[in-house]
């Protein structure tokens, strides 16, 4: 542990791939039924709340979904959705393309790791939202502003986990070099990268979540176009149905992103004993 | 009832109901329909030392967990002092095979040993006193009580687990391959320790092991399990007397003879199945 930068958080449960259901068919069916029951119960609670709470506070689920259906045929909806997805994707792509190689490079040198540790640690702990007013003033309420904000917030976990990943690989290298004679290229391809990947994935997972959160936040608070703006806009017009509809769309986007990430992780790390062990548990 | 009392007796002769500490009656267990234990019957007298041997994976741990009341058997009963049990009961302690997992890594040795005492409401001072006593009984120094269990050697950790069981004040002690993961010398020491404790405290001990030498050396009777589902293939008396020692006892012709008998028993049954 002495080699790890202190900023690094270990992979937490929420960052791991879900365990696959390895149950007999009867158990699976029963689970599905209870899950459907829970979803129905949630809707019931929502529905009851919609007419018990003061009028105008919470629309009924039916009204919300009808509204959502109506929105889906409006071009503005798809424009907002597209902008959010594009901003999110661009920010994540940038953080990945810059953060991972940079992190791996820094992590491969203990000098660079130690030198940059405090800097990254500090930058990481600034709540990214604090720079919103600044980027808003300098850039304006637009796509570029949200992108800047999101990148400045999401790159740190990816960078820092990649540094940590490389440190792990480096420790292996020292060990290997003393015991076997292994060509460096072979080592990097077969030991270093596979060894580093799980840690990189952890960083990517955190980064992905933060990317989406900041994209929506930037739009919502900064007034830049996108789903976040639509939520704030609906609220400004006391249009609760529209507001709830957009919150549901954001959540659906979040679900989609989570699911996509799990799929990627399972694909990339299928061979990895840590994932296999997690799965087996 | 003393150990010498059981010496030379025929298998079921001594099983007068009042002297039976623990009994398995028609005990069977299946995991999700897959039968692991067939119909198992045996009775263990008070103060007796019984070893259960069998090939790896035969279901010894399952049997022991049923005896302890940790697992509801799917068939038959476990009787402790004549009463059928459905959950762990007072007076029955268990020492598990894997000491590194059965001791709480976040608690000091002392807190590990006092766990059963605090559970039954013993005041802290009294609990600590009993813990110190139990640790002394298993030959551990006072100063280890403040250490974490994982700071000790494997043998010492297993001693802590035994001390914890003793602190519970048990009449029956169930042990699941307690010495499987320690080195040979430590193993011999622990075997002698358990034998001595069993006699001094007049404990009833049921110990599971793969090691036939160990089983014969320790016990008054050896119960051999075999087959799929497992059943009691035979019960062998071990009339080796109360005073045993690692070199002397294991060198006697009687020992070799019983050993060979048990060995043949398990191998034969095993081969017959596979």
């Amino acid at each position: 542990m002495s080699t790890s930068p202190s900023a690094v958080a270990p992979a937490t449960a929420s960052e791991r791939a879900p365990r696959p259901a390895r149950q007999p068919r009867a158990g699976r069916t029963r689970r599905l039924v209870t899950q459907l029951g829970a979803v129905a119960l949630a809707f019931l609670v929502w529905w009851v709340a919609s007419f018990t709470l003061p009028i105008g506070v919470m629309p009924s689920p039916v009204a919300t979904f009808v509204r959502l259906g109506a929105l889906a045929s409006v071009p503005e909806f798809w424009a907002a959705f597209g902008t959010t997805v594009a901003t999110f994707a661009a920010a994540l792509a940038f953080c990945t393309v810059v953060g991972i190689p940079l992190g791996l490079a820094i992590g491969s040198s203990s000098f660079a790791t130690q030198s940059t540790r405090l800097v990254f640690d500090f930058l990481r702990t600034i709540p990214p939202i604090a720079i919103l007013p600044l980027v808003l003033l300098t850039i304006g309420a637009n796509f570029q502003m949200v992108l800047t904000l999101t990148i400045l917030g999401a790159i740190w976990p990816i960078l820092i986990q990649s540094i940590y990943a490389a440190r792990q690989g480096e420790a292996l290298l020292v060990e290997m070099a003393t015991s076997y004679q292994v060509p460096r290229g072979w080592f990097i391809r077969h030991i270093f990268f596979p060894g580093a990947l799980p840690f990189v994935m952890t960083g990517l997972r955190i980064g992905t979540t933060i990317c989406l959160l900041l994209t929506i936040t930037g739009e919502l608070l900064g007034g830049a176009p996108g789903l976040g703006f639509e939520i704030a806009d609906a609220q400004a017009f006391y249009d609760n149905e529209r507001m709830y509809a957009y919150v549901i769309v954001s959540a659906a986007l979040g679900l989609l992103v989570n699911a996509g990430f799990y799929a990627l992780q399972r694909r990339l790390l299928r061979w990895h004993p840590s994932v296999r062990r997690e799965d087996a548990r | 009832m003393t150990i010498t009392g059981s010496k030379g007796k025929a298998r079921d002769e001594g099983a007068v109901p009042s002297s039976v500490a623990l009994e398995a009656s028609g005990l069977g267990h299946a995991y999700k329909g897959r039968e692991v234990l067939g119909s198992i019957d045996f009775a263990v007298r008070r103060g007796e030392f019984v070893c259960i041997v069998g090939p790896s994976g035969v279901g010894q741990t399952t049997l022991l967990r049923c005896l302890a009341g940790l697992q509801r058997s799917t068939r038959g009963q476990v009787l402790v002092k004549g009463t059928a049990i459905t959950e762990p009961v007072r007076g029955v302690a268990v020492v598990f095979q894997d000491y590194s997992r059965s001791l709480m890594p976040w608690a000091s040795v002392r807190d590990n040993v006092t766990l059963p005492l605090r559970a039954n409401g013993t005041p802290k001072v009294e609990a600590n006193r009993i813990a110190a006593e139990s640790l002394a009984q298993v030959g551990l120094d006072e100063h280890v009580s403040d250490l974490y269990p994982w700071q000790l050697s494997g043998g010492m950790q297993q001693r802590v687990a035994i001390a914890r069981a003793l602190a519970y004040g048990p009449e029956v002690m169930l042990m699941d391959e307690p010495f499987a993961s320690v080195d040979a010398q430590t193993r011999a020491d622990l075997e002698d320790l358990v034998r001595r404790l069993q006699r001094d405290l007049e404990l009833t001990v049921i110990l599971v092991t793969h090691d036939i030498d160990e089983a014969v050396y320790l016990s008054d009777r050896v119960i051999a399990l075999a087959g799929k589902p497992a059943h009691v293939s035979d019960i062998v008396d071990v009339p080796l007397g109360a005073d045993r020692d690692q070199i002397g006892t294991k060198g006697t012709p009687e020992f070799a003879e019983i050993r060979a008998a048990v060995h043949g028993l398990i191998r034969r049954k095993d081969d017959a199945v596979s």
Partner: protein
Amino acid sequence: MNKRLLRDLGLEIWLPIVLVVVWWFASASSTSFYFPPLSKIMESFAADWLDPTQAFDNLLPSLALLGMGYGLALVSGVVIGTLFGLVTPLEEAARPVLEFLRAIPGVALLPVFIVLFGIDQPMKVLLIAFGSFWPVFLNTVDGVRGIEPLLLDVAGVFRLGRARRLFSIILPGASPQIFAGARTALAISLIIMVVAETVGGSGGVGYFLLDAQRNFRVQSMWGAIIALGILGYLLNIAFRIIERLVLRWHRLQQARLESNS
């Protein structure tokens, strides 16, 4: 030993010093409205955050809010997480609903929470708690479900009561995971705190930022960013100190496992 410590310290501190010095001189003659000289930034930083009365006005509401929201997330996350971790069918049934709720980007709920709970302190506390609940909850569920089964057997054999089983076995066993979740939750609650404070006028760092933005006080904004960085850093250190104390056994045990392998 001491020499090594000194060398490590030097290695870690040189770059931050160089960066600050470069920033200082590179910005010294800056006339840009948005990137004022560092000396000016430090001036307003000192005025807003080092002067005790000012600092208290700006910081105390934030810390109180954070404490309540984060505290609520911790307590509810651990309690509900333990329940769901112990009662597996409950967790399995609720999983789709929970996945959905957790996928909502926390800040998107701000308008909803305003409509539901108003714009005052309770709404802010609840928003922070909702956002930072999930890492605590999910990690607790996982930690509780991952308890060494043999220890549950031990608890059974020695007939531990419910409460003792919970406090002597289950919670200590899950504590490393719970702490991992609590650390993520801390970062999230800090973000949501700033967001929540931009609503209404109860003071705090978020309000200060908003006010600076409205009045184009760029220096103050820079100062607040630095202040928030320092606050976050200090909170992280405090968290780590507590974690090191509580999980001392875990840290030492891991170190031992690593040195043995």
